[in-house]
């Protein structure tokens, strides 16, 4: 199908974007890479009054390296992240995950801010942000605020970003010496949305953060798993089995790919594989 009728604006400055967003009558929808929004419009699941194209805002397409963090502009496209030397060096988990995010032609257009702002439960990047304890910079006419990833993803297509607000940056802590990262997903076709997947960050003190995607209404931390794995130096078969069994705490939700029981089964498999690959 084709997209329903809408008006189109391509502002040149952040303040123009915020002005448009503050006008409720316009029913604005932000257009980043469009790789999820356009299908939703073609399916008539989304019918914005005004489409606000962000591609003219140059400050959203910058990657900054600070002393302890990497700040990624919301309009940075996946392919730019994939080939960026600072990301490879300081955010190896992102580099590990990106080849599994959709297909080359989609990665050429899709943006990090778009993925985060959509909060698709099966997308990889929300889980990456959760397990890295990232912060999301949100801007509105009232100013700039930082939302931790842990309280940003509310539910399917629902985030802490309000309709008059705009995601401007994603702030990721630099990887520390002694940190290890794990990732595994199972999808029907390479590049398709995962049936279930997991990201793991392991600190030097053996604290582990574990975030799943494709299993619930949004990306989620598995605190039960984290508790079992915390401080454990040798990940024996028994420990991994305990961690797998603790996934019964999560309320699994089915989708077009698999029902809740199948999701739980696959989540247990990806967890074990990701942990074993980290050794």
């Amino acid at each position: 199908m084709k997209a329903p009728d809408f008006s189109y604006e391509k502002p040149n400055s952040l303040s123009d974007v915020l002005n448009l967003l503050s006008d409720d009558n316009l029913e604005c929808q932000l257009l980043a890479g469009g790789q999820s929004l356009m299908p939703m419009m073609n399916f008539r699941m989304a019918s914005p009054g005004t489409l606000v194209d962000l591609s003219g805002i140059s400050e959203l397409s910058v990657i900054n390296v600070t002393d302890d963090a990497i700040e990624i502009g919301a309009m940075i496209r996946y392919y730019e992240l994939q080939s960026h030397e600072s990301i490879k060096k300081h955010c190896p988990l992102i580099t590990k995950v990106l080849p599994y995010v959709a297909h080359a032609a989609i990665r050429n257009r899709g943006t990090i801010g778009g993925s985060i702002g959509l909060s698709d439960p099966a997308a990889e990047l929300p889980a990456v942000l959760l397990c890295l304890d990232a912060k999301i910079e949100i801007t509105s006419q009232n100013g700039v605020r930082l939302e931790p990833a842990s309280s940003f993803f509310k539910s399917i297509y629902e985030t802490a970003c309000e309709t008059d607000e705009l995601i401007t940056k994603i702030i990721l802590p630099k990887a520390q010496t002694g940190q290890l990262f794990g990732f595994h997903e199972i999808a029907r076709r390479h590049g398709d949305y995962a049936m279930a997947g997991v990201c793991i960050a392991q600190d030097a003190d053996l604290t582990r953060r574990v975030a799943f995607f494709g299993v619930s209404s949004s990306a989620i931390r598995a605190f039960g798993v984290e508790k079992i794995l915390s401080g454990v130096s040798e990940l024996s078969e028994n420990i991994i089995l305990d961690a797998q069994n603790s996934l019964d705490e999560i309320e699994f939700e089915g989708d077009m790919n698999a029902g809740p029981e199948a999701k739980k089964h696959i989540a247990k498999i990806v967890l074990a594989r990701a942990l074993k690959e980290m050794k």
Partner: protein
Amino acid sequence: MSKTAQITVSVNGEKYIEDVPVRMNLADFLRTKLGLTGTHVGCEHGVCGACTLFLDGRTARSCLTLAVQADGAEIITIEGFESEKNASDLIKNFHQGNALQCGYCTPGMLASSIEYIEQGNPADRQKVKEYISGNYCRCTGYQAIVDAICTTIEERQN
């Protein structure tokens, strides 16, 4: 508030200035406004890959790109793959190796293949399969397509 816009695009090296409804996607623009029907429209939600073309040097789904977003951009479609992308050998290998039957996926399949080869990737069947995983083909079973890409890479190396 505008429902139409004037855009300037370069398509296969030629410049066009056209008025478009803002809701028109790039594939429909090329096919109906410019008469360039080589770009095929399959699923219209970014899954099948038939509409893939080059937008400012990188592959993109033209069904997920509005024509108005392409304002100022350089576009290369299958009509320009020989002249703008020097892909005659790849096209010959698709033809000789039966890497197409109905031809519906071919414009997008060639776009992804050209990008894979341009990036200096190896004639590695697994890597080729991953790269073209965003393009559906319902005729060939893919093996002949992978053959054509690998053959082209090997021929260019020799």
